[in-house]
């Protein structure tokens, strides 16, 4: 999602367009965002309908006070290692995160992760947002025309497919079009959030909110709380696929680090808490159900239509960087495929999932936590590589050298330490907390599953990379330099 949410930030369109289209390192004059700009971008990114959805789903498990605590703890943890893994290196080198993953996973290994973890994560979010559009339009239809379409009716599927088609159209026009739409969407969603807050303050007492029971909890209160924390940690870490592409446009480490963490954390918390309060007040976790009771038939319908449109542009935004990553990770395979066809290919699975709207909503938490298991382990490995083993030094030239000429070629283009760390870290996550069976290890009650998965991913990476590569002087772990250096021999080979 390079440069889609630029509303409010000072941008130069031509620079942004050029910068966002390639994987080349940006130069100083192309890094256009200071701390204030980047804070605005992150706030706009976080104030989105998915935050309402997460707030609503948190209310399924816990009440208001526990929900706030779970949101703070979960997001603080998830965002912490997500920011360290994606923002810091992308800012320093002016490169999006997928190219910078080559030292950690190898060029083929990055492809494996992009075509599995990243692609599935973004496809899931896209289908969910599209189904939300279908549900929003259904609510408007039921109110305006007295129809009786259910949340899993064919009309939901029809408008979800239409949303996907419009998202594809926006996406196929490129990042400038996405940015143009988002200029209106981000402030609009801020107004919707404020509207919900005002309504809640006027119509619900603080006491009512604090005594409201969770909507569909399990029997074990501690398990409910920790599931809510883990869910929010998963949401925090799920920003990984988009953040590096944005951070590369910032001017200094501090202009990237704190705005990414603070902007996302504060804006996410506000939108999620508002969403949770609305869900507890109305007894429904689905944001599309809230607007009619809150706004009445006219204003409610207007807000729902706006939310539908916001979801379409949000989908375009999150898919943009993923399709770019897919193109890069495929090497020559997809480099000649037209951008519009590539985008259409991405939307095949979300379109199929649109035929099962109930399934996607029911499995939302499962999807977030499962993708969080893999992303957490990935983040752990990336942090161990960049901060511990490389001491923040990556050879820029080696990132781009082909095949064996690159120090990051490892074995057949795969850094097995990286992939091994992801597999072991994710397995450790599932051992502590299995989101399918809900079986938990006692450790889960104290540590969450994301944090230990990241730590295990990092430790496994450190050990394997040291034994397999560093000791044998493979992977440029010792001699990496901060700038463009690569050994003369390798340049000769290239």
């Amino acid at each position, binding site marked *: 999602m390079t440069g889609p949410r630029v509303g409010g930030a000072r941008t130069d369109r031509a620079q942004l367009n050029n910068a966002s289209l390639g994987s080349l390192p940006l130069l*100083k004059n192309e890094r256009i965002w200071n701390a204030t700009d980047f804070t605005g971008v992150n706030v706009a990114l976080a104030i989105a309908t998915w935050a309402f959805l997460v707030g609503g789903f948190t209310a399924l498990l816990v009440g208001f006070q526990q929900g706030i605590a779970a949101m703070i703890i979960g997001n*603080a943890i998830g965002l912490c290692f997500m920011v360290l893994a994606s923002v810091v290196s992308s800012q320093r080198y002016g490169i999006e995160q997928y190219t910078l993953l080559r030292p950690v996973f190898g060029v083929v290994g990055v492809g494996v992760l992009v075509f599995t973890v990243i692609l599935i994560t973004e496809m899931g979010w896209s289908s969910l947002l599209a189904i939300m559009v279908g549900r929003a339009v259904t609510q408007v239809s039921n109110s305006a025309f007295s129809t009786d379409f259910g949340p899993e009716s064919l009309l939901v599927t029809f408008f979800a497919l239409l949303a996907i088609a419009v998202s594809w159209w926006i996406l196929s026009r490129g990042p400038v079009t996405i940015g143009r739409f988002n200029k209106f969407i981000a402030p609009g969603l801020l107004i919707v959030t404020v509207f919900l807050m005002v309504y809640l303050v006027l119509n619900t007492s603080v006491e009512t909110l604090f005594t409201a029971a969770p909507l569909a909890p399990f029997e074990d209160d501690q398990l409910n709380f920790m599931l809510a924390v883990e869910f929010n940690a998963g949401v925090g870490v799920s920003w990984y696929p988009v953040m590096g592409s944005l951070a590369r446009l910032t001017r200094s480490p501090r202009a990237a680090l704190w705005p990414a963490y603070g902007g996302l954390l504060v804006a996410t918390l506000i939108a999620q808490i508002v969403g949770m309060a609305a869900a507890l007040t109305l007894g429904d976790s689905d944001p599309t159900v809230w607007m009619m009771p809150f706004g009445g038939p006219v204003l409610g319908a207007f807000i729902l239509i706006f939310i539908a449109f916001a979801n379409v542009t949000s989908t375009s935004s999150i898919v943009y960087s993923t399709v770019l990553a897919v193109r890069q990770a495929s090497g020559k395979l997809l480099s000649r495929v037209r951008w519009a066809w590539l985008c259409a290919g991405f939307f095949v699975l979300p379109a199929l999932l649109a035929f099962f709207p109930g399934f996607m909503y029911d499995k939302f938490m499962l999807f977030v936590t499962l993708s969080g298991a893999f992303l957490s382990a990935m983040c752990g490995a990336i942090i161990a590589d960049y901060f511990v083993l490389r001491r923040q030094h990556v050879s820029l030239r080696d990132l781009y050298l082909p095949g064996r000429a690159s120090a990051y070629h490892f074995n057949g283009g795969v850094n097995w330490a990286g992939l091994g760390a992801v597999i072991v870290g994710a397995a450790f996550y599932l051992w502590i907390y299995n989101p399918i069976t809900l079986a938990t290890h006692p450790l889960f009650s104290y540590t969450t599953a994301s944090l230990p998965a990241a730590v295990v991913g990092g430790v496994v990476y450190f050990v394997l990379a040291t034994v397999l590569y560093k000791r044998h002087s493979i992977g440029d772990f010792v001699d990496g330099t901060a700038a463009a*250096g690569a050994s003369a021999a390798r340049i000769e080979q290239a």
Partner: protein
Amino acid sequence: MDAADVTTSTELETRLGVIDTIERDDPSRRALSGADLSLFVGVSVVITLLGILVLAL
């Protein structure tokens, strides 16, 4: 290697050259300092503790 590849390769070389010479010590390319890193992790821990405090209230 077609024309597009050549253009990209030339552009990459130009950029690597600029980064290696002109921007090498520029503040925008500075590594995150140990103090900044410690502060960042510390703030994250404090916010997590704040969440626990909210729970305990």
